[in-house]
């Protein structure tokens, strides 16, 4: 039974349960609302909840776990085949999966029968050809080990599907009967439902934790896998980055980190002075009218997606810089994509980020500080430079660190604007590349996920995650300390 049907049946059962639970409670009280412990709808909700929640949780868990269980079983038998064909098990496994899916499609399209799919032998049938008839293209001929594994895979999956359907339905019906029996007038339905809702709320709140765990696990496992096939010292200390999918890659992170920091530095050099001065002007000088226009105008820059900035870098800023600094002008620049291009555009993107954070922080400096300074005969700029900014300094440093973390994690601008060459150079008009850009280039395309060239992206991601997380935690700590000071 397809999953969608199963879900619909469970939901229908829950709806019926709601009506019946409500009725049963009411009739138990002789139709008198007031004799019930809770409102009638709570009795209904209790039944619906006990039908749907356990069944759907079980279904979700089963959907995730079944393929894992089936694969672990099959994988154990594939070691021999993997050794024979000198390929990693995961590759063989994906072949098996492809053949199994192909057989499913073929049955669906009526090219082969169900029995035929289960009994097919490579000795007698060219599986690849048969599947091609069904519109399933396979990369290579199917050998007997893979076919058998695929057939077993289908077998297990079929058993699992039946078991899943029965188990879920059993849970739903069980919950239905149990909750319906409970629906007597004395039953504390509201409390039960509210406890249930409370657990749902807690579950939702845990998704944030699960996401973090998911990020960490997916980075850690793949990074460990990477360090198994590629030495960690090489990765961290080599100054060469030259992946080749044929093998023999050099995957040193240093040139990427250099590019990342160089671009971020230029971005901050653009964004911090402009953003800070803009914030100072808006909060200390601007009339209400100017503030009402200029602040949203600058904040529009923050709402523009990064892909737009990327295109702006690639097609507008790059050619513009090239015409000034390129061969036609000063001759420092060879192509439109360069550290300068990406840094400048990223700086523009970060202006509103710096300015609105600094604006908040400057506004948090108490008015009494300003009064004290004006009262001594200080001018506005003296007050700002010598009283407000020093007072706001920790907060502003925090804001800059947050902006730096943004810059380091930014992807689209550098993918489109910075170029692809990994190099360590001091010339900002040369193309360089960053950690994020290489994560994209190593994971898009048809690379095998088990090769060091693809796995390195996870190690890069791990590095990126650690750096940005560190910056954020530190920055948030500073900002919080700063705010506490004036509260």
């Amino acid at each position, binding site marked *: 039974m397809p999953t*969608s049907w199963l879900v619909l049946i469970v939901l229908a059962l829950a709806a019926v349960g709601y009506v019946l639970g409500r009725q049963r409670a009411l009739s138990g009280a002789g139709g008198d609302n007031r004799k019930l412990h809770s409102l009638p709808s709570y009795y209904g909700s209790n039944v619906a909840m006990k039908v749907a929640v356990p069944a759907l949780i079980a279904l979700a868990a089963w959907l995730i776990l079944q*393929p894992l269980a089936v694969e672990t079983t099959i994988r154990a038998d594939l070691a021999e085949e993997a050794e024979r064909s000198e390929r990693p098990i995961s590759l063989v496994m994906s072949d098996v999966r492809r053949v199994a899916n192909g057989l499913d499609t073929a049955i669906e399209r009526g090219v082969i029968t169900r029995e035929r799919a289960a009994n097919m032998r490579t000795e007698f049938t060219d599986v690849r050809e048969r599947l091609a008839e069904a519109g399933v293209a396979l990369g290579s001929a199917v050998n007997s080990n893979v076919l058998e594994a695929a057939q077993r895979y289908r077998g297990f999956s079929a058993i699992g599907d039946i078991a899943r359907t029965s188990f879920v339905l059993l849970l739903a019906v069980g919950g239905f009967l149990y909750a319906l029996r409970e629906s007597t007038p004395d039953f504390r339905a509201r409390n039960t439902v*509210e406890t249930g*809702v*409370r657990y749902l*709320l807690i*579950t*939702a*709140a*845990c*998704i*944030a*934790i699960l*996401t973090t765990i998911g*990020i960490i696990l*997916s*980075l850690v496992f*793949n990074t460990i896998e990477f360090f198994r096939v590629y030495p960690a010292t090489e990765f961290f200390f080599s100054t060469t980055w030259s992946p080749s999918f044929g093998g023999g890659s050099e995957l040193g992170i240093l040139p990427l980190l250099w590019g990342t920091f160089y671009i971020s530095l230029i971005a901050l050099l653009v964004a911090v*002075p*402009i953003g800070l*001065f*803009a914030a*100072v*002007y808006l909060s*200390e000088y601007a009339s209400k009218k100017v503030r009402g226009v*200029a602040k949203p*105008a*600058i904040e529009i*820059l923050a709402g*523009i*997606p*990064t*892909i*737009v*900035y*990327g*295109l*702006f870098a690639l*097609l*507008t800023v790059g050619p513009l810089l090239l015409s000034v600094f390129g061969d036609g002008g000063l001759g420092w620049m060879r192509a439109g994509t360069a550290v300068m291009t990406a840094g400048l555009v990223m700086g*523009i993107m970060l202006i509103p980020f710096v*300015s609105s954070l600094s604006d908040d922080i400057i506004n948090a400096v108490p008015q009494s500080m300003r009064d004290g300074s004006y009262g001594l005969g200080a*001018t*506005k*700029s*003296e007050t*700002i430079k010598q009283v407000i900014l020093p007072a706001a300094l920790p907060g502003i440093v925090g804001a800059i660190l947050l902006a730096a973390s943004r810059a380091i994690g930014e*992807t*689209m601008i550098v993918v*489109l604007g910075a170029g692809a060459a990994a190099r360590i150079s001091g010339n900002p008009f040369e193309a360089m590349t960053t950690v*994020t850009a290489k*994560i*994209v280039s190593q*994971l898009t395309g048809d690379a095998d996920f088990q090769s060091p060239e693809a796995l390195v*992206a*996870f190690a890069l991601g791990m590095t990126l995650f650690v750096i*940005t*997380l560190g910056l*954020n*935690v530190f920055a948030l700590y500073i900002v919080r300390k700063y705010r506490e000071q004036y509260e």
Partner: protein
Amino acid sequence: MSDAANPASPAASNNGARSIHTVDARTKKRNASEKRFKYYGIAAIATGVFFLVVLLGSILWNGVSAFQQTYLEVPVYLDPERLDRENPSSATTFTYNPLIAEAVWERAQELGFGDEFEDEGGMSPLISASAAAIIRDRVIANPDLIGETIDVRILAGSRVDGYLKGRVDRDSASRDRNIDVAHLELVDAMQENGSIRKVFNWDFITGTDASESRAEQAGIGVAMLGSFFMMLVVLGLSLPIGVATSIYLEEFAPKNKFTDLIEVNISNLAAVPSIVFGILGLAVFIQFMHLPQSAPLVGGLVLTLMTLPTIIISTRASLQSVPPSIRAAALGVGASKMQSVFHHVLPLALPGILTGTIIGLAQALGETAPLLLIGMVGYIATNYPDGIASGFLDPNSAMPAQIYEWAKRADPAYYERAWGGIIILLVFLFAMNAIAILLRRRFERRW
């Protein structure tokens, strides 16, 4: 007023060393530095606004032309000797191509270009490769047309389109293998004659993506659907989960380590680079759970996780803005804590929650980086989804991913599409933000 407060004359004048009516040199210097400082501020604002204007200007300047497309209008004779009336689908586009080229060549001869172009073969740069398929579909739908001369409107080739939009000129054409200066002369003549025209390009908005060599045919419609299905997933998941999380944290959570852990997690997730969410999506949803690559469902899941912190933060702010007296009033008439939250606090916080959700959705709509990793780039979105399930599960692109895809292609004709795509994307974003602002204005409540 008392007598004491009414003295005879103001204080005697005393223009001593510290007269305030003469501004001393030091004060002048200080005021000059004050002015300078203020100008730095104005310059910063002006620079910011200048960047905004340049950015928006270059989007409009480069992108508006994508909403116009050049078409050829010529009568095409559907030669019954080459097309089979009984079995119209037997003729492939290879049969139709010469028919169209001949029709255009005829028009060229009428306009006195017979010398430059000896046969219909020279016409192919003028005609989009998609034209034959369009006419073929029309004939298959109505085989009776065979043998007649029909007036058709077909896409012009991308170089011709570029010429009319100023992207291609005689200078660049003389260096281009795909088109000659003579072609441009012909285009000028045909434009004067009315058989080449620029019209509003609906196909760009509703159409499908095209292969690398057919820039003139590419549209963003399918990617828009992909984005739409992704946003459905994001809305359907992040709103309930975000609201539930916020309600728990604001109203029920005890002050303990576990609650702190959740809070720290949320504030850190808000600052995790988006590409890391892409890695998460790739590792968990595609490698681990084997969900289909390039599917809007997966894109939606990844964007949901990314959007959740935004929605949680704004929802908590609007729950906080509901005064405690409302909760106390509900509890005071005997409502349970849960009832006070769901019957009173939540409805009052709803406008704020919706505003935050819309802004979160707008962010998600423009996000590109994580989509690159789950395979939404490199996929050429040429098919509309068949239905709702296929909308969620079949490979598709999304607007920002489609823009990125176009920006990467070599043909500059695609850059115009990319800018055009950005205009559409920004129209959506501005609309969403405008709705959010209106909602806030309309329902803003001062307690």
